[in-house]
């Protein structure tokens, strides 16, 4: 009975601290400390620092700041704007017109940036005024943007996947590779939706764009090509086994610096801004990971993960039913929390559960990203919605409404992943063995 009582106290403290708006990293540490004091006589403070030090100084983690930095460079220099401009000439003849730039822009920016908020901000800043000026319906502009921005966390590099990989001790390179095809499929789903909308909706449609010569198109997209080269370099070097995830990130940073210097937008100001911005984001995530490392140590002593895994095992759920339950669980959790925190908070409990059920851990990472990202476009707490609100000054309820079709498509993506798990698992199983991994 005391065991149940202690577990109750533990969970109460967890929700009180998180809901009470203590910073996530410190909240996790506080809860973990309570757990250590309740369930074990081991000295909490010393165990805490040992765990945190091991985690914070690990080699795997070094990919994190570098990928963030690479995204920051492209975001703060003019490179990404030009990229967007270069994309538009190729999209104008598709049914649905320039709305496709939202999707394609997000897909490409996702391949150089690891966060969906940065993707959304970048693409939105460029595309919203352009699309509005051409008379595309607001509903479609906002909706497609909200949905497509989530690709930022799916297509490598992805901060969520790095955090997931560090938490469950899986190869980040493999996780990155696993994200490529599902990301492209999701992007295809969004584009199909736009095409369907074009043919079936009765509302206003903008006039077709005036034709443009092929030479002019290439001239417009001259910065697209080096950027594509950069993306292929980063992803390709990982796939071919020439570089680890961290080394690919270093290549990305140097490539981004070189490209922006060649374009002439690399000033001391943009350089220092990108560096300090990356330092902040990286410290924010590292801090959460520190708290999470201590929490998962403490969780182990509470016996909660084991009990839950046994409980789930006793239910004799099929893996599909388990996935359905977890989908629902993460959607609800994601209503109140951001994606990163919900990953680190739950993995200590969920990891034994899925390993017990025989679910592929790499596949689960991709599944997790899709579900968590879906939660980011559903109210009341949806980070992407907040970013869009800041950008467009629409009511959050309106933005959420425009995103509903996208949420549907993303849930469809979950189903696709369950039916064809090879979509995620094929590529990582076929990479060449890399150095030191």
């Amino acid at each position, binding site marked *: 009975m005391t065991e149940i009582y202690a577990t109750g106290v533990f969970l109460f403290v967890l929700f009180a601290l998180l809901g*009470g*708006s203590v910073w996530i990293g410190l909240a996790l540490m506080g809860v973990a400390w309570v757990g250590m004091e309740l369930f074990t006589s081991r000295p909490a403070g*010393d165990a805490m620092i040992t765990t945190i030090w091991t985690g914070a100084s690990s080699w795997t983690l070094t990919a994190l700041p*570098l990928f963030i*930095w690479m995204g920051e460079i492209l975001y703060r220099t003019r490179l990404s704007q030009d990229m967007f401009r270069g994309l538009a000439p190729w999209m104008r003849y598709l049914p649905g017109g320039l709305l496709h730039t939202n999707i394609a822009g997000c897909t490409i920016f996702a391949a150089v940036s690891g966060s969906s908020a940065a993707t959304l901000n970048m693409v939105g800043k460029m595309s919203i005024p352009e699309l509005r000026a051409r008379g595309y319906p607001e509903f479609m502009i906002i909706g497609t943007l909200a949905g497509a921005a989530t690709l930022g966390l799916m297509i490598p590099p992805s901060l969520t996947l790095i955090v997931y990989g560090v938490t469950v001790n899986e190869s980040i390179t493999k996780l990155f590779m696993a994200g490529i095809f599902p990301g492209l499929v999701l992007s295809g789903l969004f584009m199909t939706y736009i095409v369907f909308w074009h043919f079936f909706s009765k509302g206003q449609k903008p006039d077709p764009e005036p034709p443009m010569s092929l030479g002019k198109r290439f001239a417009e997209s001259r910065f697209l090509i080096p950027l594509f080269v950069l993306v292929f370099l980063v992803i390709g070097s990982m796939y071919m086994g020439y570089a680890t995830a961290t080394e690919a990130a270093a290549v990305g940073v140097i490539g981004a610096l070189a490209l922006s210097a060649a374009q002439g937008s690399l000033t001391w100001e943009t350089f220092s801004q990108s560096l300090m911005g990356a*330092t*902040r984001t*990286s410290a924010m995530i590292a801090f959460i990971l520190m708290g999470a490392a201590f929490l998962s140590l403490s969780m182990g002593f509470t016996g909660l993960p084991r009990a839950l895994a046994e409980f789930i095992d006793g239910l004799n759920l099929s893996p599909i039913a388990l996935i359905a339950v977890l989908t629902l669980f993460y959607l609800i959790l994601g209503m109140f929390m951001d994606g990163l925190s919900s990953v680190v908070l739950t993995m200590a409990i969920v990891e034994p559960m899925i390993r017990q059920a025989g679910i592929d851990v790499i596949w689960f990472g991709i599944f997790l990203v899709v579900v968590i990202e879906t939660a980011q476009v559903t109210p009341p707490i949806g980070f992407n919605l907040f970013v869009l609100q800041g950008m467009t000054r629409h009511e959050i309820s309106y933005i959420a409404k425009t995103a509903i079709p996208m949420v549907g498509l993303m849930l469809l993506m979950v189903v696709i992943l369950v039916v064809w798990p090879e979509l995620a698992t094929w590529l990582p199983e076929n990479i060449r063995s890399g*150095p030191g991994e």
Partner: protein
Amino acid sequence: MRDWQPFLGLPLWVWLFVFPTLFAFFCLLQRDRAARLLRPIWKTLDRIYLGCGVVAACFMVLILLLIVGQMVARWSSMTFPGSTEYAGYAMAATSFFALAYTLTRGGHIRVSIFLNLNKFTRLWMDIAAMLIAAWTATYFARYAVKTNIFSKMLNDRTQGQDYVPEWLLSFFAMFATWPTEWAKLWAETGSEWVYTPVWLPQLPMSIGTILLAIAIWDYLFRLLVNRESSIGGETL
């Protein structure tokens, strides 16, 4: 409370937790007097936070250089022993040095759904959350320092293949010894490279966590004095 040795006649936890909390009450009740007392040091503290942010950024550049060095070494079939360890140390230094700086720029995330309910929760819940955060961060810093001192006492060495020159160790050891001992310290210092002792890369952890604790107490006091949060918001 068994490993809280006395310090200046009082248990350490009284110094670390009780006195700052009492001062927070003082700030709450005597706003003007607290403001006069604190305002002069705010600017200096902000400069220190920013300075540590810059140090963190330098370590991030160092990570990049280390990894590039590692790749170049591999391509030219040389070895760069311990490169992964060095990069790990630089990673830890980046994270820890930037903690306080990130906090003051509003970079750390929190669940703000209840915080944003109304003006009352906006102030009082923030105060409560910051007080809890300050205690936790102080606890974190205290044990980080303790672990760091123990690493030095036990002469804990790295598990990897990384070396540091001995003079570097002596340089940092100077800060922990009396100036009268310095001659002896340097006389014993050889010119060879030794396996990295763990206390050296752990120094940023001690400094960073202490600074984080100071920053949270500092911004709690500012919140109590000004009655509005001084933490700048940042989009993204």
